[in-house]
């Protein structure tokens, strides 16, 4: 891709995230950007050398499509997000899942999510973990304003809006966790690889 970038395709979000963590540890790239089924390696110091190492990894036992690559330490921190479940689309999601609102909350809090990738806005994390059967479509007409901290679903992704913005995701609730702060050494609370659990706010 261009002069000094590679786009690596994988089977899914978790594999992409694992490969991104491997690339960060083993390759010299200015940017390592996981996507839904890919990892962009941009600004590679040695694109040909990186490609060769990726081919060797792909042909070996540790390619993340087959086996989870050993993850780099701190990215595996578990973040708990205290959440008030009062979202405008709770009933709607319950209808789609064929369960009660209480069961939506139960299922959501029982799921261990993982940040697959970020996009849309700084600190906006796409959390994987929901099964395909629970996929919900986006609103055809996005809301003009979704408040900061909104916890929402789209397809099998769960996301938390770091700042108020327009949005078409289905709203489950809200958290006041500080998701994005450029003055912190790690500005995004939810960076790729981070594990996330939602807990009901007391």
């Amino acid at each position, binding site marked *: *891709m*261009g*002069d000094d*970038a590679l*786009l690596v395709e994988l089977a899914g979000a978790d594999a992409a995230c694992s490969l*991104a963590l491997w690339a960060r540890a083993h390759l010299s790239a*200015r*940017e*390592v*950007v*996981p*996507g*839904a*089924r*890919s*990892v*962009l390696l*941009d*600004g590679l110091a040695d694109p040909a050398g990186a490609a060769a190492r990726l081919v060797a990894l792909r042909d070996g036992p540790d390619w993340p499509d087959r086996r989870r690559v050993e993850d780099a330490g701190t990215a595996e921190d578990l973040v708990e997000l205290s959440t008030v479940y009062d979202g405008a689309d709770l009933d709607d999601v319950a209808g789609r899942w064929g369960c009660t609102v209480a069961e939506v909350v139960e299922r959501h809090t029982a799921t261990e999510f993982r940040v697959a*990738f*970020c*996009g*849309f*806005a*700084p*600190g*906006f994390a*796409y959390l994987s973990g929901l099964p395909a059967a629970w996929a919900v479509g986006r609103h055809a007409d996005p809301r003009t304003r979704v408040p900061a901290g909104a916890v929402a679903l789209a397809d099998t992704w769960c996301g938390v809006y770091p700042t108020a913005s327009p949005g078409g995701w289905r709203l489950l609730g809200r958290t006041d966790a500080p998701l994005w702060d*450029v003055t912190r050494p790690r*500005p*995004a609370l939810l*960076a*790729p690889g981070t594990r996330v659990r939602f807990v009901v706010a007391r």
Partner: protein
Amino acid sequence: MTITVLDAGLLTTVQDRGRHGYAHLGVPRAGALDAAAAALANRLVGNRPDAALLETTMTGASFRAGRAVTLAVTGADCGVRVDGRAAPFAEPVSVRAGAVVVAGPARRGVRSYLALSGGLAVPVVLGSRSTDTLAWVGPPAVRTGDVLPLGPVTGAAAPSDVTVVRVPVGPLRVRRGPRDDWVSARAWEVLTGSAYAVSPDSDRVGMRLAGPALERLDRGELASEGIVLGAVQVPPSGLPLVFLHDHPVTGGYPVIGVVDPADLARCAQARPGDEIRFALR
């Protein structure tokens, strides 16, 4: 010490070489669109290459210097006036404290760069002083009346042997991929055989184009994936666009090729209506 902005013009932003290493968190790179012109302006006034300067758009901008300062204007060719008197373009110019400096409007091109000795010392956010107009990380766009801090002078002004940075002419050279097979073979003939016109809604995010649409092949939905600077993306309209420094970090429309980095200055300086052609590398 500071400068006071008397007229911010159409869009003036603070830029340096951009914000690197945060794309995975959703932060665009930002940075001067015409990187070579910005580097020249900094060199002329004796700044480090990563000093922050002003990037103006079409109309130029004016300010009052709060201290004696050396300045240089590069990029889009424009008139430079200090206290009402003409001053040279793309050369170091010493001005007294209190001087009023007007740069612009651009005669050719779009973006002029105004470097001041010491650089603009706005706060560093995630490693850069650049304004990013997509996610608004970094300082807001410059407004009339703003007072911008200057940093300490780091070097002597250096008249340069090469004071004209030539914006490349000819077609934008494109390297195919990664999603070059998401459009038809005919689409590649159309892309490389047609004249496109720069669209008025082009901005720091991307150069949008009017012209013949490219035929997309039905390959379902593309999962969101990382985007690079200079990416040629084909949205459902079929009209290609070239992503510039404030591009989103990921996108769900196919990127069929990437423009040679050496040709990006051309995109930065292309005016609405200007003709753009593409050629394969």
